[in-house]
């Protein structure tokens, strides 16, 4: 069979000593940038791009960059769990239950299940990529502006489920997130909004600054105020690996997360974020203990972490089969390949089978490497919690401040970070779960531009969202979900 021949050919490329070494370096570097707050895969690949020019073989270059990319997805959960510091949008959800677990001395279990879930999800997604890439890529193309709008709407409503007890507070954060995202140049009309003459505001805020401020810095301010002797957080480390019960609770969550991540991850733009949200909401729905979510439920880590890893693998599908880069990091890989004279797209598999299969084979390899690399690291990361808070806190602040600064090389972003830190601190005081804020921020451009694009296409008719099959189905699904939720809470209220 073609696929097996191809895969064998791919492994013969990926298993050369150079490529194994490069894949390992990529995974290592990826894990490192994933762990460091404020440095994303896109920024790292951008920095490394000139280095890849001197690598002659395009396969080796892409193996390096792919390693960084999915390695950073593995590493991204680490700071979310340990320090309540999401490095990228897809790990915001992980903060909610992961950090709670860490506070209860279960950081090891959370990190362990995240690594194992990521490995399973990554591997299953690569198998999917191997066998079904072309038909799935066609499916991704079906997502035009109306579909993206309804999908982002689904994501937003899922984000409200993160808000815990108060729906009103969740909704306020959602609207606030959308609003903060609208600061700067409006992509559709080209007008500037809410900048009030401040130059730095014209380019708007960056996600990393917002998320690190609201989560990480807000948490630090809160902790600093609370205690005269800051010995908190760093108390219990607990057992390092997940136990049997954790595993039993998580295994279905991992599988469901994988499936969700694989399919939603294909859709260009925002796929990984939405998949982690959908996975979290789904786990909360099917769980027998929904009240534990938000208080350190391991499924709330296992599901979303699996989903975002599956999504990072499946986001290669549109690139490799259609020549369409789905996010900023993949776009960097796309550019690097073009410079090397290789055009990703429908002809890649015929014209450069060594590149196509070599990358896929290296992804199988990379997942194993990442597991081997990350499981022992769990033990080391957990030790990080033993670092006294008086040292940990300023170091974390410096990392976030430098991360924010390096986004655009402007001090303004440090002040923005500080502002968001104050906001995060106030939210914590007022018992808000901050999750919906950064998530709405990420989804905002998708919601707004695709809404306005859809209306331009339809000539102002909202029927475009209902009459198209995928979008119509999503709307129907949403309606059923909302009605179901309303009925459910009504019945619950009557009972009590």
């Amino acid at each position, binding site marked *: 069979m073609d696929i097996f021949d191809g895969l064998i050919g791919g492994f013969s490329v990926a298993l050369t000593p150079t490529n194994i070494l490069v894949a390992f370096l990529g995974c290592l570097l990826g894990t490192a940038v994933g762990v*460091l707050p404020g440095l994303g895969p896109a920024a790292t690949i951008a*920095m490394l791009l000139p280095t890849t020019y001197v690598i002659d073989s395009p396969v080796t270059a892409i193996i390096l960059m792919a390693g960084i990319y999915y390695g950073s997805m593995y590493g991204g959960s680490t700071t979310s769990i340990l320090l309540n510091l999401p490095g990228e949008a897809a790990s915001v959800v992980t903060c909610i239950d992961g950090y709670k677990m860490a506070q209860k001395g279960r950081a090891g279990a959370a990190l362990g299940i995240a690594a194992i879930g990521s490995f399973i999800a990554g591997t299953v997604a690569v198998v999917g990529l191997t066998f079904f890439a072309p038909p799935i890529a066609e499916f991704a193309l079906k997502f035009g502006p109306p579909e993206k709008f309804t999908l982002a709407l689904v994501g937003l409503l899922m984000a409200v489920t993160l808000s*815990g*007890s*108060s729906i*009103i*507070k969740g*909704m*306020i954060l959602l*609207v606030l997130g*959308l*609003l903060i995202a*609208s600061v700067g140049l409006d992509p*559709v*009309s080209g*007008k500037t*909004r*809410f900048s009030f003459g401040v130059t730095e505001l014209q380019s708007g805020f960056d996600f990393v600054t917002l998320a690190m401020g609201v989560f990480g*810095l807000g948490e*630090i*301010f*809160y902790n*600093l*105020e*609370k*205690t005269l002797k*800051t010995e908190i957080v760093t108390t219990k480390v607990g057992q390092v690996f997940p136990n049997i019960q954790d595993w039993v609770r998580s295994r279905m969550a991992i599988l469901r997360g994988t499936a969700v991540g694989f399919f939603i991850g294909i859709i260009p733009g925002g796929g990984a974020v939405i998949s982690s949200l959908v996975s979290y909401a789904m786990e909360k729905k099917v769980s027998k203990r929904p009240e534990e979510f938000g208080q350190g439920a391991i499924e709330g880590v296992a599901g979303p972490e699996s989903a975002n890893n599956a999504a990072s693998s499946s986001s290669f599908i549109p690139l490799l089969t259609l020549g369409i880069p789905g996010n900023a990091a993949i776009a960097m890989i796309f550019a690097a390949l073009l410079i090397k004279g290789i055009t990703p797209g429908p002809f890649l598999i015929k014209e450069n089978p060594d590149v196509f299969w070599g990358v896929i084979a290296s992804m199988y390899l990379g997942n194993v490497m990442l597991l081997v690399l990350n499981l022992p690291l769990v033990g080391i990361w957990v030790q990080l919690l033993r670092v006294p808070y*008086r*040292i940990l*806190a*300023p*170091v974390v*602040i*410096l*990392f976030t*401040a*430098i991360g924010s*600064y*390096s986004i655009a*090389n402007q*001090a303004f972003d*440090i*002040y923005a*970070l*500080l502002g968001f*830190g*104050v906001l995060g*601190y*106030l939210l*914590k*005081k*007022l*018992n808000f779960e901050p999750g919906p804020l950064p998530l709405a921020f990420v989804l905002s451009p998708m*919601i707004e531009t695709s*809404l*306005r694009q859809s*209306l*331009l296409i339809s*000539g*102002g008719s909202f029927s475009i969202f209902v009459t198209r099959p995928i979008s119509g189905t999503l709307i129907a699904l949403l309606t059923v979900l909302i009605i179901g939720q309303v009925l459910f809470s009504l019945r619950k209220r009557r009972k009590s």
Partner: protein
Amino acid sequence: MKRHDPLQKVELAAAVLVVALGAFVTLYAYFVLRLGLIISPGAGFMPFLLGVALLLLGASWFLKTLLLSGAINTAAAYDLTGEVGLASGAAKGHSGKHLWGFLVILLFGLLLERAGFLVSITLFMLVWQLIVEKQKWFVSIVITVLTAGAMYVIFRMLLKIHLPSGAWFS
């Protein structure tokens, strides 16, 4: 746990703030950004909807806090974290460290481009240990040298991130 009045007052104030923000956004979107046509929605279209939503949500938060004060379920919700937000801070008396922390970060932002990366992180760590955490001189200097050195190695040598070397020195 009994509900404390200060928290309710803060919540009400926050709700009023949300309403005010909503009103501002609504007006700004309507008059400055413009709504556009439904065929071609303008820059103010989405902000207008968001402003109205904030108005409504802020108002309902206000009413809910006012009406449900003392109700069992809200009190329970606050109990989950084991804290009662502001109330506990007021009771224990806060450490003031968060205010110092805020100032030190602000100072770091002001210094970074002027004094450069290395000087700024060194000062930040030193000030943090001495003033925010009130450590002894010796301990502070040791911690500062170690952490600032490690960061210099990570950012400059390993990651080679382009960071300011300081306008004052060039």
